[in-house]
């Protein structure tokens, strides 16, 4: 993708400012309808999910006491993985969004919730709720675009280090919770500052995060395995917890990649966002900057209803069980205003997101202009761009893009 304002055909060009404000009013109406109807049914839903999740986690951990026996290991690990996914996705993420604050139950409230994840609720709420949801897909402002370690947009300048980004992405997927923790701390940026000059806020937050990581690791890799010692299950339990964390990490990473990275999701230029962006304009940006995953009810639940990423970004504080209900109305608005409602099955979205990660690990236009015949010369060019300094890189990049354009025009 390229920032929307740099595209030859801006997908919002047909909308007048009045259209955009009207769109905002219609989306507000959808939100209000849910608020008016929100009640006992929703409260019962989240309480049931919390109850099921806790029972499942406890049962799985109990089963894992006997994890020296392979069938119990498998059973317990599957259960624990599902429990951890539910806890992070459908419960933690959504509770911390304040989706359930209206119940006034201090036990299920954005201000009190802490989740089963390396990052602290406080840090996550800042980087996710505040930065990402407010400045969604604005290049240079929304750090979720590549998490500061990847190139996920043509407008991010290519650098040889991005060649390794498919590998980074894989590692990030496996250890995603630590990735998020580091990302919430803006670790890269803060560590580049000399130690004595680092801000007090960063130091305090880093300390809190380390404490959280220690507690999490103690639970998963010391205490619970130790409880299994009498049954000879220390190491199997360590392995089970590691596997469950891995499964949860890869799953949540995949779901989240699908939310904003698939091909066709729009990004925005920082300078093109007005200082006083209206509610309608903000809504429009959310509509174009998100992608849905289509699938079964179980899939929606396991993604924490982030499969309804578009609806979630429009209404981040509506209860997650309502996204599926408002989706048809939202989709109708996309049609009415002739916008692209981006939805595809999980496998397709994951492939698309990974394809983009690989494509953008290479200079713009390189993949498009490469075929079996010119592969050796293209490889040579890439080698030169990687090793020969910025001047060569810039010249080659310009040529590649020109070629790609020509090729596209001819086709």
């Amino acid at each position, binding site marked *: 993708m390229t920032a929307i304002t740099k595209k030859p055909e801006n997908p919002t060009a047909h909308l007048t400012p009045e259209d955009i404000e009207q769109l905002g009013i219609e989306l*507000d109406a959808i939100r*209000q309808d849910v*608020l008016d109807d*929100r*009640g*006992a*049914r*929703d*409260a*019962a839903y989240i309480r049931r999910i919390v*109850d099921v999740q*806790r*029972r499942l986690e*406890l049962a799985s*951990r109990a089963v894992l006491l006997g994890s020296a026996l392979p069938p119990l290991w498998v059973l317990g690990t599957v259960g624990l993985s599902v429990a951890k996914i539910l806890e992070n996705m459908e419960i933690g993420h959504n509770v*911390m*969004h*304040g989706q359930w*604050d*209206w*119940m*006034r*139950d*201090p*036990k299920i*409230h*954005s*201000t009190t919730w*802490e*989740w*089963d994840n390396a990052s602290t609720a406080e840090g996550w*709420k*800042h980087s996710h*709720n*505040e930065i990402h*949801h*407010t400045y969604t897909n604005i290049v240079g402002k929304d750090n979720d675009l590549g998490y500061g370690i990847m190139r996920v947009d043509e407008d991010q300048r290519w650098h040889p280090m991005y060649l390794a980004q498919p590998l980074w992405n894989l590692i990030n997927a496996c250890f995603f919770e630590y990735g998020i923790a580091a990302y919430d701390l803006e670790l890269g940026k803060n560590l580049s500052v000399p130690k004595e000059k680092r801000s007090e806020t960063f130091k305090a937050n880093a300390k809190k995060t380390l404490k*959280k990581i220690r*507690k*999490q690791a*103690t*639970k998963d890799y*010391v*205490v*619970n395995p130790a*409880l299994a010692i009498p049954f000879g299950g220390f190491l199997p339990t360590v392995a089970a917890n590691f596997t469950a964390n891995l499964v949860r990490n890869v799953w949540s990473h995949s779901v989240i990649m699908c939310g904003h990275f698939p091909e066709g999701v729009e990004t925005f230029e920082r300078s093109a966002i007005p200082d006083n962006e209206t509610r309608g304009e*903000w809504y429009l940006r959310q509509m174009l900057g998100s992608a849905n995953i289509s699938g079964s009810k179980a899939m929606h639940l396991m993604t924490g209803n982030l499969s309804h990423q578009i609806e979630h970004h429009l209404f*981040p*504080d509506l209860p997650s069980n309502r996204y599926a209900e408002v989706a048809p109305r939202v989709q109708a608005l996309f049609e009415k205003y002739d916008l692209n409602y981006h939805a595809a099955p999980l496998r397709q979205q994951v492939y698309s997101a990974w394809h983009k990660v690989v494509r953008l690990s290479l200079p713009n236009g390189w993949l498009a202009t490469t075929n079996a015949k010119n592969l050796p010369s293209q490889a040579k060019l890439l080698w030169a761009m990687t090793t020969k300094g910025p001047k060569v890189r810039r010249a080659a990049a310009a040529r590649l893009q020109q070629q790609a354009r020509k090729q596209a025009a001819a086709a």
Partner: protein
Amino acid sequence: MSIAVPSGRARSSRGFNLRQGLRRVVEAAVTPLEIDDVLDVFHPLRRGAELRGRIVEVRPETTEAATIVIKPGRDWAGHQPGQYVRMGVDVDGVRLWRTYSLTHGPRPDGCISITVKAIPDGVVSHYLVHRSRPGQMIQLAQAQGEFVLPQPVPAKLLLVTAGSGITPVIGMLRNLFSRSEPFRGDIVLLHSAMTRDAVIFGPELRGYAARGLIRLVELHTDRHGLLDVADLDELVPDLAERTAYACGPAGLLDALEEHYASRELLLNTERFRPVTVEPGEGGTVSFADGRTVDADGATPILDAAEGAGVLMPSGCRMGICMGCVLPMKEGAVRDLRNGAITVAVPGETGPGGVPIQTCINAAAGPCHLDH
């Protein structure tokens, strides 16, 4: 070599350490949850849990009143008849707190009961009377209140009640008459209600009167008009000799207090707080440190407070990130996005007040924020 240790003491402190140690292990095994979160899944009424209760019976008293019998958690510390209890009830998914008089003395089954009259626009009272069901959980606070009979119970009593004002008094009466040796004093109960059928506990009260336990004077508004304090001397000639308790609407209590004060007599009253917060436009926002800020009805509290130099937590400033949420202890605010009003009345919120988003709420009257 021997070390003499006073054994009993050592065991208790070792027992204490073991318990503490065990607790720490379990806590480490379930983090980020707390042990209580886990135990709540299985036994929400256990000792040590947050105080809650389970509704065990909902019994209609009149068409608009019902008695709710509740099994309280193990930590319920007991109560005296006449006291009240604060409870958090989930109405349409929203936890709302109200205060109700306990309508029994301590019961052998350990349950407590309240009797609720559905008042016009009373969200919680309507819910409890018409929609609550056995099995539902409610949040509880410990019993409170000074509206209790002294011990020993005075020989001559006057009880003046109107409408649901009977509820603390019925608790007193039931307690007196359910003793193995029922109280044999001289009690006059003067009760005012809209109609004969609207008298909560009517058959029970008439039963006490028939058995000669009390003298019951019923005044039905539809036939006799409202209770007039001027008639008191006629209705209760020996009023001055009686220890007096009154509970009912504010108008009645005000008149009674005036009547008693003018005669230099003592009157015990229980007032049910009227729940009326009329939301307005703008208001003064006060903070825990005593600072106050004037905020108009169109400006988010966050902006108004920051404009006046108060350090406020903040985030997206558009109502989505929950980074600005602060507890409102008292007052009313208006959501600038859709006009929705949120009200906090002391005693009718959770222990921490009502959390509000300051970035999209404007003052709709004087507000107090705990910040």
